[in-house]
C-alpha cells in the first residue's frame, strides 16, 4: 500500500491525460470530511493534524476564501475556508467546525495551511476498484483538482488533490467555475 501511495504522488501530474490509469494509483487512505451535504477526501499523507476551531485573525486585502491566520503553537499559518473556495453558501461556525492542517506543496516549497471544514468524518481506505475517474463536465470546466470519485458503502467521496485546490491558479479557476 505504501508503495502505491508513493507512485500516486508521482503520477499526479498526468491525471487529466490518463484518468483511467490514475484510478489505480489514487488508491490509499483518505481523511474524509463534510462540507454542506457533500463528502470530500484528502490523502492522509498530506494531513498534519486536525485542530479545533480557534480565533482567526483576519488579514486585510486577501482573497475572501482566506479566513485569516492562526497561531499554531507559535507558528503563524493561514487558514482558508473550503466553503468560500468552492462557492458554497457560508454558515455560522458550529461545534463540529474544525481546521485540518495540511502540508501543501507549492512552487515555493511546502506550505503549512489550515482548511476549515464543517466536520471531519473518518479515515477511509479506498482501493483502486472503488475509485472512478472524475466526471467531465464538458468544456471550460476544470476538474483537475479532483483526483477521482471514491465509492464507499454507496457513498460518493470526492477525492481532492489539495495541492491543486490551494494553488492560486486553480483557485481562480474554481471561482470562474462558480460564476
Amino acid at each position, binding site marked *: 500500500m505504501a508503495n502505491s501511495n508513493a507512485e500516486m504522488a508521482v503520477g499526479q501530474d498526468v491525471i487529466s491525460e490518463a484518468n483511467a490509469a490514475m484510478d489505480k494509483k489514487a488508491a490509499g487512505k483518505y481523511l474524509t470530511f463534510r462540507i454542506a451535504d457533500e463528502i470530500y477526501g484528502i490523502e492522509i499523507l498530506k494531513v498534519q493534524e486536525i485542530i479545533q476551531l480557534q480565533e482567526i485573525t483576519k488579514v*486585510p486585502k486577501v482573497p475572501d476564501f482566506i479566513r485569516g491566520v492562526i*497561531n499554531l503553537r507559535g507558528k503563524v499559518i493561514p487558514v482558508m475556508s473550503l466553503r468560500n473556495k468552492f462557492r458554497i453558501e457560508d454558515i455560522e461556525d458550529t461545534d463540529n467546525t474544525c481546521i485540518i492542517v495540511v502540508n501543501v506543496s507549492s512552487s515555493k516549497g511546502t506550505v503549512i495551511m489550515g482548511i476549515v471544514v464543517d466536520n471531519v468524518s473518518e479515515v477511509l481506505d479506498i482501493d483502486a476498484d472503488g475509485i472512478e475517474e472524475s466526471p467531465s463536465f464538458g468544456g471550460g470546466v476544470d476538474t483537475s483538482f479532483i483526483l477521482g470519485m471514491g465509492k464507499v458503502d454507496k457513498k460518493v467521496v470526492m477525492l481532492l488533490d489539495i495541492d491543486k485546490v490551494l494553488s492560486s491558479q486553480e483557485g481562480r479557476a474554481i471561482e470562474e467555475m462558480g460564476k
Partner: protein
Amino acid sequence: MQIKTVTKKLDKLSKTLVMADVDDLPSIGELLKQLEGFSKIDCKECPSIVFEASSKAVALAEKIVLEDAPDREATLDVVSQTVSCMQSIVRDGIDPKEVEFPPDLGIGGEKAPEVLDESGFSLPPNVDEEIFSEFLANQDSVLEEMEGCILAIEKGDDPEAMDVLRRLLHTLKGEAGALGLTDIGDVCHKTEDFLQATGSATPVDTLLAVKDWFAGRFEDYRSKNRASEPADVILSRLLARQPVEDEAQPEEVKEHDESPQAVPFEGDPTLLGDFISEANEHLESVDADLLNLEGDPNNQDALNAVFRAFHTIKGTGAFLNLDDIKELAHATETLLDRARKGEIVLAGGAIDIVFDVVDRMKRYIADLAASLSKGEGLSRDNSLPDLISKIKAVASGNVPEQADKKIGEILVDSGVATPEEVDDALATQESEASEKKLGQVMVEKGYAPAKEVAGALRQQQAARGQVKETVKVDTSRIDALVDTIGELVIAETMVTQDPEVCQNSSIRVQKNLRQLTKVARELQELGMAMRMVSLKGIFQKMARLVRDLAKKSGKKVNFVMSGEDTEIDRSVVDHIGDPLIHLIRNAVDHGIESSEKDRKEAGKPEYGTVELNAFHKGGNIYIEVRDDGRGLDKGAIFAKAKEKGLITSDDTLSDQEIVSLILEPGFSTAKKVSDVSGRGVGMDVVKKNIEALRGRIEVSTDPGKGSTFTMILPLTLAIIDGMTVKVGVERYIIPTLSIVESIAPKADMFTKVVGKGEMISVRGELMPFFRISRLFGVQDAKEDPTTGLAVIVENGADQVAILVDELIGQQQTVIKGLSDGLGDTVGISGASILADGSVGLILDVPGVIKMAMEA
C-alpha cells in the same frame, strides 16, 4: 634549427635587453619583436621549457609596452632574468630542472612540483577535516584583528599593536604549520622577519598586502582551489622592501638551498642525528615548563628545568660546532640564570622572548635535519644576532613590553599608592636584591594595606585569565533555540495571563508564576544575546576603506571610530555593510574637501575627519557617519529636485526633506548633483537596505562644516518593538520606530480636501488622515475620529495620521513571517503572537501609506 643559431639569437636578445629602457619604447619594441621571433623557433634539441619561458616573457614585454605592468622596471628585470635562465639552459647546457626561473613568470623547474601539490591540495594525513575547517573559520576574526593592528601601527598611537600583530602572525604560523599549510607558514615567517627588520618604520601597505593575501589564500583553501596568487609574489614583495643593510637576507629565503655561505658540517652525522632528536625532546619539555612558568613565575622547579635543558643544548651544540645553537643557548642561559637569581622576573615580555628562542631553535633543528638528509651544508641564520641582542637586553633587565599591568601600576591606578611610593618600593626591592615581591615591600613600607595589595594581585591574575572561552555552534541551532524560546515565552504569557489562572488567588501559584515569567524573560534575553555580534569586524573594514579611499583620492583623512563593541543581531550586521560602505565612500569622496587649501581657507585642520560611531539609544542601534567636510549643497539639491519636478514649492528644505530627496532613486545617480553637491551616489542602496532592516536614516548637515548620516536600526530582526492598537475587533501592531506621536483629535482639526480625502492639522501642520478600519475593511471600528486616537506615523519625510480605536500597550514581540500560502499582503509586514495567544498583524507603515495614497 640548429642549437647554435638558437644560442646566437639568445645572445642578440640579451644584448638588446641590456640596451632596453622602460622609458624608451622603441627599444622595448625591438625587444618584444626578438622575443616573439624566439618563441616561434622550432628547435628539437632545445628543451621546450626555453620556448615556454620566452612566450611568457613576450607577454611580460607586452605589458611593459602597454604600460599595463604595475612596476615596469621590475617586469623588465623579470624578462632579463628569464633570458639569462634561458641562456644557461641553451648555451651552458644546464639541466632545466636546475635552473630557477623568476617566480613571477609562473613556470620553472623548482616551482613546478609545488604548484602541482597545490592544485591537488589535500590535508596532511593526521589532520582532521573538521579541525581544518575550524581553523579556517577562526581566521576571519584573526585577519580582522590583524588589519586593526596594521592600521594602528600606521597611526602609531598604539605601542602594543606591533606586538599583537607579531603574536597573531606567530600563532597563525604555528597553526598553519600543524595543518601543513606551508605557504601560509612561510609567509608568516617572512613577515615576522620583515617586521623584525623594518621595526617601527614598517611599510603598512606591504603588511596590508600580506593580510589581503592571507584572506585570499584562506578563501582558496575554503573552496579547495589552488592558490590564486602564489606565495612567491607576496614573499618577493616582503623581501624587496627589506632595508638594504640587511644584505644577507636573500640567503635566508633559501634556507633550504645551497648557498655560497653555507657552513659545512664538521661533526659526525650520527652524532648530529642524535643531537637533533635529543634537542627536540628538550625543547618540547622546555615548552611545557615555560607554560607553567608563565602561570606561576616563581616556579623554581620549572625554571631550573628550562635552564638545564638549554645548558645541555649549549654543551652538545658547542661540541658539534653548531655556533648558532651555542650562542643562542648561551644567551638564553644567561637570561635564565638571572631569573633564577631573582634579578629579573620571567614574565610578560621576558617569557615571550624565551618562547621565541624555543621556536627559533626548533626551526634551526628542523633545518639542520633537512640539510643533513640532503647532505648539504647549512646556511647561517642572519636573524640570530638580533634575537641574541634582544635576549641580552632582557637579561640586563630591560624588558621590552609587559603585556600585563604591573602590580605597582594597578595600585597607582586604584589610588591606593602614589607613583613615588611605588618607585621607592621598587628601589628598595632592587637595592636589597631580595626575593621579596613588590607587593610585600609595599606592605612592609606601609604604603599600601595588605588587603589592597591582595586585591591588586587578584586583579592582575584576572587580567591574565581574561581570555574568553568560546564554543563554536552552528548558527541554525542557535536560530532554532531562539525560535523555541520565543514559543516558550508565548506559552508562558498564555498561561500567566489566562483568566482562570489570574482568578486563582493562591499566593503560592502567583509566586511560582512570577518566577516562571522571570526565568522565561531571562532565557529570552540570553537567546537574543547569543545572536548578537559586535560591530568590530565591520567597523574595522570601514577603517581600511577610509584609508584606501583617502589614499586614492589624495586626501588627508583621519578616521575615528567609537562604539565598535556595540552588539547587534547577526542578521542585521549582514545588511549594514553595504549602506555603510556607501555612506563612508560619500563622506570621503564628496564630503571632505578635495584640497587642503580649501580646508585651510575654511579654517579647518589640514586633516579631514570621518567619524563612525555606534551607540544604543532607546532600544535601537544608532550608527552615525560624520564628516567635517563641506556639507550638503542644499541649493543644488533644491534646484535639481525642481528640475526633476519632485518639488514645486519655493520653500526652503528641511534636512529631513533633503535626505528623502537624495534617497530618491535616479535622483542619486544624477551626475550633476553629485558633482555640485557631493552626495548622492548609491544612496538608494542605503535606502533599500535600511528599509529591509525596518530602520530609517536621518541626516543633518551644516554647510561648510560637514554632515552626519545616522542609521537608526532595530537591535534585531527577530523582535520588534511595537505598539499594539485596537481597531474594531482587530488588533494591529505598529512598529514604534515609525510612530511620531499619538494624539486625541478634536473636531476642529479636520479639513476635507476635495479629491484628497481628509486632512488633519496638527500644530499647524496639515497631514493626510486615514482610517485603518476603512483601508482594511474592519468591522465595528469607531467612525467618529474624536472618540478614537490619531497615531502619527512617518515614512521618511511623509507623515500621516491613522485612526485607531485605542492604544493597548507597547511590547516587544517576536516577529513571525506570514506564510507563503497567503500570497502578497499589502500593508502588513508580518505577524506576531499576542499575549492571549492570538495572532496580531504588524502594520507595514510605508505600505499602508502607499495603500492609502492610491485608494
